[in-house]
């Protein structure tokens, strides 16, 4: 039997896609449904002994103070981290655009933390912020300010962790904004200047609207990142993960603790479903709210 050219092309396409498709079905799609399934069962290592509990885990979530804490904290991290990261990122990108010397050097310096392992970075900051003999407190004392407990204080720990994450992600944000700024045609600014526009008005009417696609992308990516905060939280306070007094506990850390320290895999799966729903919803809403097309 001879195959037509089109049939031959289709056949090759299936050959090329076979392994990738098998991978995504088996390691991504199947586990997603399995997580949904597991959330309806009381976990047991022996599959035959797993008891069906229906929506019981989800009901339990409503009354679980630790879950509520983790959820609130996760929102706090996002509400604090995303705007800080975007604001600082944009400010630095605008400054970088203005200077003519050493731009590549500055860009590299700001970007460097982004490529370094978050685990090691968290330990470095944990030493920097140590209440006794930490460099930050030494500097505070030097300039006459009282030393702070930072990660040891239930009120300061969450903003402190957020700062470390912002510090590490800042360069990524700067580079994105810089690329966005550079893609805005010079002529727009020149034309506006001839019409008497300057400074803030140029920013407000040209830079800001034309930066919108980069902004939307950044908000969505950053939000998804903060909703999944784990590595920094664990390593910044390793001996009391999520502490002090659960003030830094996140959903991702709570999932880890439930599943792999207490072996309540079914209940943990229910929390992952909530996290999934959250990320899904927030992404949809943000795309809706922020995507205002700019026509040129």
């Amino acid at each position, binding site marked *: 039997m001879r195959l037509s050219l*089109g049939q031959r092309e289709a056949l*090759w*396409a299936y050959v*090329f*896609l076979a392994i*990738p*498709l098998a991978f*995504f079905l088996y*390691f*991504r*799609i199947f*586990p*997603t449904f*399995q*997580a949904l399934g597991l959330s309806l069962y009381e976990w047991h290592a022996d599959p035959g002994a797993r008891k069906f509990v229906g929506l019981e885990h989800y009901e339990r979530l409503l009354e679980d103070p630790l879950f509520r804490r983790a959820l609130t904290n996760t929102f706090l991290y996002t509400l604090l981290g995303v705007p800080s990261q975007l604001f600082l990122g944009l400010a*630095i990108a605008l*400054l970088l655009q*203005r*200077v003519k*010397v050493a731009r590549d050097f500055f860009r590299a*310096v*700001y*970007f*460097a*933390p982004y*490529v*370094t*392992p*978050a*685990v*090691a*970075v968290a*330990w*470095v*900051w944990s*030493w*920097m912020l140590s209440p006794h*003999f930490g*460099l930050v407190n030494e500097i505070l004392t030097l300039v006459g300010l009282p030393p702070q407990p930072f990660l040891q204080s239930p009120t300061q720990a969450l903003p402190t962790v957020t700062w470390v994450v912002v510090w590490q992600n800042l360069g*990524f944000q700067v580079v*994105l904004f810089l*690329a966005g700024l550079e893609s805005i045609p010079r002529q727009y600014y020149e034309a506006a200047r001839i019409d008497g526009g300057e400074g803030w008005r140029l920013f407000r009417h040209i830079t800001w609207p034309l930066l919108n696609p980069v902004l939307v*992308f950044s908000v969505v990516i950053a939000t*998804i990142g903060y909703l*999944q905060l*784990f*590595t920094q939280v*664990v*390593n910044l306070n*390793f001996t009391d993960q999520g502490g002090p007094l659960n003030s830094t506990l996140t959903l*991702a850390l709570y999932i*880890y603790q439930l*599943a*792999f320290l207490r072996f309540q*895999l079914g209940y943990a*799966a229910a929390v*992952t*479903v909530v*996290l*999934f729903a959250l990320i899904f919803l927030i992404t949809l809403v943000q795309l809706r709210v922020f995507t205002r097309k700019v026509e040129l």
Partner: protein
Amino acid sequence: MRAQRRLGDLLALLLLGLGSGVMVLPFLWMILTSLKPFPELFTLRFLPQEPTLENYRQVLWGTGFPRWFLNSLLVATVTTASVLFFDSLAGYTLARLRFPGRNVFFVLILSTLMVPTEMLVIPWYVMSAEKGWINTYFGLLFPGLMSAFGIFLMRQFFETLPQDLFDAARIDGLSEFGVFWRVGLPLVRPALAALGIFTFLGNWNAFLWPLIVVQTPQMRTLPVGIALFSGEAGTAWNLIMAASSLAILPVLVVFFFFQRQIIEGVVLTGLKG
């Protein structure tokens, strides 16, 4: 007017310099601390009085550090090679070949981007326990062997190429795989480089899944090794900073050599994606 502009430029430079200080200081403090003997940690001097490499010696010879480093290198290399090959092949197929079900397959793969890793690690763990993948290299590797984002990215790039190139190659008698390998791939090299860098970094720095699947010290990857070692080291910050330096400095050196490519890669993947 001109003077005012100059003053503004100077102020911008000053602010940027100050900011750079905040970015660099932790790394500097890390290196300085790593060169101090233990008692000097508490003397409030910025520079080490009697600098020593003893901390590095202890980390390199007294822990599993070399092994963790090699484990991470192996995991990151294999996953990167796999992602580069399969993601570009799948991206090419979805962009350039016509066949029934093309859009369904694409949406199917893309939809997995919405699922957070936290949701997958529990089923992955259950699966690994059943199949005996716990504490094995395959167990460490399998989640990273392909990436939906990479397929999406490569598809975007393959779509921009002119069809004539591929038609000409077929007329010249190249096989379907030859068209992809010899004509398509060389034209998307910048995208491949960017994807490669990102995949490598992502797997090199990964923490959550390795923490779950690894059970013995010999199988630890670098991040897991650093975290557990530092957890045990207590207040021996000089040792912890030596270990952190050993994890961070190689990455920084590579970064400063390839910073232009790496940063352009971010822009390429970030804005196309």
